[in-house]
């Protein structure tokens, strides 16, 4: 007989304290790729998140050790495929720094304009996909409407819509399309008239705000300690924009603001990215009419050989600080190459910001980290 007033609390079959382990991914719609999270739950509360990586690991660092300094740039487009142009730029800058190659002004201007277009395209995709993770389907179509214009511009000029491979050490592969300036201006007009729609549709949406405000809070100290960069760190108030701190190309000639928020929650990360798109438009507006005439590529030797030593460059991609570290022995191929990818560090903070929250909030926390899996696995 059992005591009718006593509640039986036997959780021995469920494991310690009623823990439940679930696998999210590798084929989960919200992980945007093949990220595998092993989530330990207590009821609906997350106790621990453990990422399992490697589903799209191609060992790019090893591959690059047998590619020449002209060839290895193409591989980097396949890492963070949404900011492939900026990845290419980082690698080209390193080779130019190591060999003291002079880059013509025309190439510098075009590189910056295309970098900012890439940043907008990346943030547009993130906006649509993140809203879709949270259950809003319409923003996806709004965001892709503008993104389509950018990919068309890229297709005209670079010949590809996603993996551009347009930058070579010394400048650009070929000159811009004759319609480039006209099309970019048309895009700016279109974007400016439509960006308020995002505010009406997403930013001012009550459901969106209540699902993201106060969710996944990251403090400034933790952001630095975890090595977070880009919009993730700037939403916590950490000033980390490489374009401002260590200006490359013509970023020191243009006026723009580093977007900073202090709340550190998912909504702040959203706001930072939306405001960053407007800053990118501001940069493009200053440069598009002033592209200097002249060569689009500087004079380089046929065979590039980096002098013996160590080189490091960093650029600001849509996700944060992208660093390239090369150890050269003086030959035509690098001895060791290391890519400091922003996604890798941003992923490592996921357990810290999501542990203790409900599993439904994981979508908001993870979505606003803006993870691109090939960038993490490399």
């Amino acid at each position, binding site marked *: 007989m059992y005591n009718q007033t006593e509640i039986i609390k036997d959780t021995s079959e469920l494991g310690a304290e009623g823990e439940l382990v679930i696998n999210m991914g590798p084929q989960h719609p919200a992980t945007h790729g093949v990220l595998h999270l092993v989530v330990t739950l207590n009821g609906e509360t997350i106790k621990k998140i453990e990422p399992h990586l490697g589903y799209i*690991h191609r060992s790019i660092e*090893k591959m690059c050790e047998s590619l020449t300094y002209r060839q290895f740039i193409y591989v980097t487009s396949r890492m963070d495929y949404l900011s492939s142009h900026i990845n290419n730029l980082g690698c080209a800058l390193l080779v130019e720094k190591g060999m003291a190659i002079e880059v013509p002004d025309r190439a510098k201007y075009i590189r910056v304009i295309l970098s900012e277009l890439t940043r907008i395209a990346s943030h547009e995709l993130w906006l649509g996909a993140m809203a879709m993770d949270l259950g809003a389907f319409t923003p996806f179509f709004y965001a892709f409407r503008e993104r389509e214009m950018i990919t068309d511009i890229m297709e005209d000029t670079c010949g590809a819509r996603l993996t551009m491979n347009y930058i070579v050490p010394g400048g650009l592969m070929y000159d811009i399309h004759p319609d480039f300036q006209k099309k970019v201006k048309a895009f700016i007009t279109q974007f400016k008239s439509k960006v308020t729609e995002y505010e009406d549709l997403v930013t001012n949406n009550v459901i969106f705000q209540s699902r993201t405000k106060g969710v996944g809070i990251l403090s400034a100290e933790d952001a630095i300690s975890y*090595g977070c960069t880009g919009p993730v760190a700037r939403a916590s108030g950490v000033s980390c924009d490489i374009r401002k701190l260590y200006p490359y190309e013509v970023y020191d000639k243009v006026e723009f603001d580093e977007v900073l928020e202090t709340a550190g929650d998912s909504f702040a990360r959203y706001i930072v990215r939306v405001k960053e798109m407007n800053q990118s438009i501001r940069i493009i507006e200053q440069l598009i009419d002033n592209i200097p005439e002249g060569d689009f590529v500087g004079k380089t030797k046929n065979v590039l050989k980096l002098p013996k030593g160590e080189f490091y460059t960093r650029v600001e991609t849509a996700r944060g600080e992208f*660093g390239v*570290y090369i150890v050269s022995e003086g030959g035509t191929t690098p001895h060791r190459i*290391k890519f400091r990818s922003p996604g890798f560090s941003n992923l490592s903070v996921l357990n810290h910001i999501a542990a203790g929250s409900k599993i439904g909030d994981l979508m908001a926390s993870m979505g606003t980290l803006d993870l691109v899996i090939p960038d993490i696995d490399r």
Partner: protein
Amino acid sequence: MTNEEIKEYISSIAPAATFDETGEWLNMIVESAQLKPTMAALRTGKMQMNYLFCLTCVDFKTHLTMVYHLSATTHRQSIVIKANLNREQAMIETVCDIWRTAEFLEREVFEMFGVDFTNHPDLRKLILEEENPKGFDEKKGYWPLRKDFEDPINMIKL
């Protein structure tokens, strides 16, 4: 803070440290046993290097070198710390209690180079499969980014 002042400060913590100023940033090579106290002193005190932005390892065929790129969000000065390791018995103390980002980065170095990080809270493979492929020489170790790594199935030599 000038490089001279940093050198003086480092020499007071790790007297055996050697310096190299040929590159972009100040490089210093410390003994692997001295690494942890040096790093702890750089994080606190007057340097306040709170941002570890790159942690990796390089195989120089005769030895391995751990490379730590440090910076600070206050004064924005970057320095590079290096420690040479024995190839057969690669062992160094973890820094992931100083910078949390090191936890994942050290796990990556562990599986790619076979460097054993002592006192690491969770030293497992991160990217590769947990079990090595069948038929692989276990004594040699399965460390893909080492220079003597050979994979007859998946690797194409150029």
